């Protein structure tokens, strides 16, 4: 396994360099680079089909990039099996609430800790996630398939947490949830980051929520990064306001500005 020196920000926990990922002949990711510094929340925004899920799948090893590298804690991990990547410390929370429907909530959570052998600490962490998600404690012995959508979303986040990951990949945790629940989930994501020190890569369509939660953001369009900045500044950006926050503008220029500014990479 080749070790590469991080080449940009100080100590990026994860750095993705020029990855290209295909579905058969279809090129879904067209040379994306991004960094996730330790201890921070980084978000990737993009419309349907932009390639957000594909980026996460490439990082977690479900898909292999044709070109480019994924470096985690100094080691290249692209092309590895997803279970190997998970045991290495990256927890992928996929879109669409992928619970184990016939296992109980508790068994689901314990499966999150499958790769760990420190039993006492796993028991403590179970209490810890019950603290963040009290509803899961109430439903501990119920089959996960019978939870509501929002509860399942909490379960998959909690389950990923049980692995004690150093990096969490969150794929659209707000999808299909009520505004109140979205707020609650993002609040917990923030607390997990602050209190547990979990670094997060958060993929979202809910730009407003994501930009308020994260520190740094990338904007993805058709498989390319077209913009990246501190979230505070992205929130102020006219492009973001217009195309992701739905703020009506006097539409002097109907075209997407970043295209004309040639920020293509």
């Amino acid at each position: 396994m080749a070790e590469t020196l991080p080449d940009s920000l100080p100590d990026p926990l994860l750095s993705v360099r020029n990855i290209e990922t295909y579905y058969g002949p279809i090129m879904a990711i067209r040379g994306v680079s991004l960094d996730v510094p330790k201890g921070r929340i980084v978000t990737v925004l993009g419309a349907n089909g932009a390639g957000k899920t594909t980026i996460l799948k490439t990082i977690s090893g479900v898909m292999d990039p044709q070109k480019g590298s994924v470096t985690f804690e100094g080691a290249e991990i692209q092309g590895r099996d997803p279970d190997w990547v998970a045991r290495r410390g990256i927890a992928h929370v996929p879109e669409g609430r992928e619970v184990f429907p016939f296992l109980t909530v508790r068994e689901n959570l314990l499966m999150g800790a499958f790769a760990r052998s420190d039993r006492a600490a796993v028991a403590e962490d179970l209490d810890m996630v019950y603290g963040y998600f009290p509803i899961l404690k109430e439903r501990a012995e119920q089959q996960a398939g019978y939870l509501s959508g929002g509860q399942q979303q909490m379960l998959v986040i909690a389950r990923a947490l049980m692995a004690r990951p150093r990096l969490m990949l969150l794929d659209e945790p707000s999808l299909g949830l009520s505004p109140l629940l979205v707020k609650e989930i993002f609040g917990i994501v923030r607390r997990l980051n602050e209190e547990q020190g979990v670094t997060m890569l958060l993929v979202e369509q809910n730009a407003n929520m994501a930009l308020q939660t994260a520190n740094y953001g990338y904007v993805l369009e058709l498989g390319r990064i077209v913009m990246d900045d501190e979230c505070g500044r992205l929130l102020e950006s006219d492009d973001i306001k217009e195309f992701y926050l739905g703020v009506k503008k006097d539409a002097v220029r109907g075209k997407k500005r970043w295209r004309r500014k040639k920020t293509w990479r």
Partner: protein
Amino acid sequence: MELIQVLVAGIAQGCVYGLIALGFVLIYKATEQVNFAQGDIMMLGMFAAFTLIAIAGFPWWLGALIGIAITGLFGFCLDAAVLRRIIGQPQFAVIILTIAVGFIFRSVAGGVWGADPVSFDTPYGGMVITIDENETGRTVLDVAELAIILGTVVLVGALYAFFRFTRIGVAMQASSQNQLAAYYMGIPVKYVISLIWGISAAVSCIAGILLAPKIATFDPDVGFLAITAFAAAVIGGFGSLPGAVLGGLIIGITEQLAQAYLPGEYARSIAPVSGFIIMLVVLLIRPDGLFAQIQRKKV
């Protein structure tokens, strides 16, 4: 009291079907593949036990244990070396492959052990328990049949505990219910699936070893039994472990009842296919089988 005798024979036969059906369903749940070589794996297990016990002279229990272990390992390797590599191919490719593999096993067994019936001694083989004796005759129970029933109860209990209470057992359930999510948990899914193949093969071997003293002799075609076991799995819903065993019991009991109580010619012709008749009826009434799980699994 002939009925008791018939029922015990039916339950015992049903347990054998049930165990083989369990083997089908374990693999199906984990991989959505139907392993049509299941019966031939059982056959190989029986010949492994035959070789160890009758030829090499091992005591029965030791020969049986080693035979089960070898067959389990064989199932593991069959997946790791062959089946795993065709993941993602269309279903029918897998089905044809397992059928072909079964043919190969049968012809190899014919070459190695010959086509003539063989047998190995089981300590309780041929023993009977007399439960009722009067002037018209006596009712006896075959100990081999009682051993099948007892063995099945113990094995099913052990499997239940394994899947429910051990970490690797729960991980097997998890991998069967949602393979991708299992990968995300760091579960080595490929290894887990091979383990399931190993367990499935070992269970089939146990079924064969329990069956051996009941049928006295066997040859490389003994694995055709699995076609009836397949019907049992379908009746059970093909995704339900308890359903597989119950499906087996339903077929086993029906076969014996048909054989005992249908008039003359019919008994001989109907009994062997009664399982398929039940399967047809069940499929017409409840296409998903009797114990289908409601939720579709995600792959």
